[in-house]
């Protein structure tokens, strides 16, 4: 199968990845190769087989008690932040 340039651009946008124009054909090629490769699964008969979301069959989600166990550590956590003011993470203005 062959992905078009438009498809690559649309996937890249969904994934918020800026690609150089020159890169697009490269990704077109490699992604098409990969999708062809995994496409062989199509031929396999999986009638009546449930999809496996977890390797541990039969296990179910643990519930934790409703207790406050965290304190305010925003200064430590925000040490890694690219831009912070008055405790808020800053990004370019979002218009709603």
């Amino acid at each position, binding site marked *: 199968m062959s992905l078009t340039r438009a498809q690559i651009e649309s996937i890249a946008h969904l994934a918020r990845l800026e690609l150089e124009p020159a890169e697009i054909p490269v990704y077109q090629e490699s992604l098409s190769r990969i999708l062809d490769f995994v496409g062989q699964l199509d031929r396999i008969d999986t009638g009546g087989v449930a999809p496996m979301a977890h390797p541990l069959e039969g296990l179910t989600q643990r519930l934790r008690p409703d207790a*406050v166990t965290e304190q305010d550590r925003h200064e430590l956590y925000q040490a890694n932040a690219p831009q912070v003011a008055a405790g808020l993470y800053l990004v370019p*203005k979002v218009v*709603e």
Partner: protein
Amino acid sequence: MTTAQWETVIGLEIHAQLATRSKIFSGASTAYGAPPNAQASLIDLGFPGVLPVLNAEAVRMAVRFGLAIGARIARHSVFARKNYFYPDLPKGYQISQYELPVVAQGSLDVVLDDGSTKRVGITRAHLEEDAGKSLHEGLGGLTGVDLNRAGTPLIEIVSEPDLRSAKEAVAYMKKVHTLVRYLEICDGNMQEGSFRCDANVSVRPKGSTTLGTRAEIKNVNSFRYVEKAIQYEAARQIELIESGGKVVQETRLYDADKGETRSMRTKEEANDYRYFPDPDLLPLAIDEAFIEQVRADLPELPDEKAGRFSSQYGLSPYDAGVLTASRELADYYEEVVRAVPREPKLAANWVMGELAAALNKESLEVGSGKMPAGQLAGLITRIADQTISGKIAKEVFEAMWAGGEGADAIIESKGLKQITDTGAIERAIEEVMAKNPGQLAEYRAGKDKLFGFFVGQVMKATQGKANPAQLNELLKKKLPG
């Protein structure tokens, strides 16, 4: 086509914040009003390497809601990731539920304005995490992100498109609001964002069975705005179609100042959420024992309570509905009635009338303690035993409200006891008759309207304390002469 030939179809999606102490997937506090990001743990911030662990109380609350709407509780439900990019969504995905929600099909009976009852279907209710908040003002042209709210548990309640008017939609929304507060799973505080509503609105020619294209009006957070937004939107769509246009499936915002809905920038239309089961969470298993435990803990629900009030206290369905609009009000009323068990209707009138008006005026809740149930009961007792008339009682109530004293103390200090001594009333009547010979003559000549004049004069003379029933009877006897 005229408006009368169109039908509006509405479905509501309500997001209620669950009143847990900690977040749905982390141990950070959910308390409102903390400084920015003081309650955002590493998990809420979506740091590298962190993992979610599910809050038991959030599950319990969801099951509580499901049982209250008569829904099937899923024995196995699955958390799914809803993937999109937005600054208030730190992981770049929201943990929600998609194909297998914890609560499946249920319904709520809603009493409409005309007194009829409509059964509104609820397609599903599921658990998910709330996003953070963005602030746009005062940051030098930037947007500030506060993730305190990120991770707060939500229950998303999706109605069937069963609603046919803005008023029906509001009635349903109010019913859900009452219910979640009854169940103590949500504080219903719309100003603080604990209870939010999106409305899906479409129109179609009356009689059609296919649905028209719908628009989604997001985040309308008051009963009044929901009503106005839906009315505006329905009218907008009808006009659009009638002038040859087509309704676009889109997200719109309600502008309260302008009273209109506006298309949002295509924030999510272009989004493909790529839902898939969250591999960091295992399937949620809920067994019979758990469900029965939650069921046993259910409080008397609003409909049951209203029905009981009707039969137990002889109240009309409407009055029963008003008194059971909140658990606090219902509990208050019952406390009053326990103290004056022979006067349930009188108690109802006072609670729904004077008390409600006084509370409203000062924007207080019935639980504020301003007028304890016992105190109001004391006043009603004095009306019932004829110590004071209904009219005087209003004066006493005002004094009680202002000064906090009990009814008896005020009646005593202001000398407001009703006059029930026949002799005393007769003497007052005779005085008034003597002072007003002209009107007396006119009355005796046939001007029946003047009866009211004499009532008024005797009341004035007795500072309103004459027992009205006795006064009427005695005037009827004495006036004709």
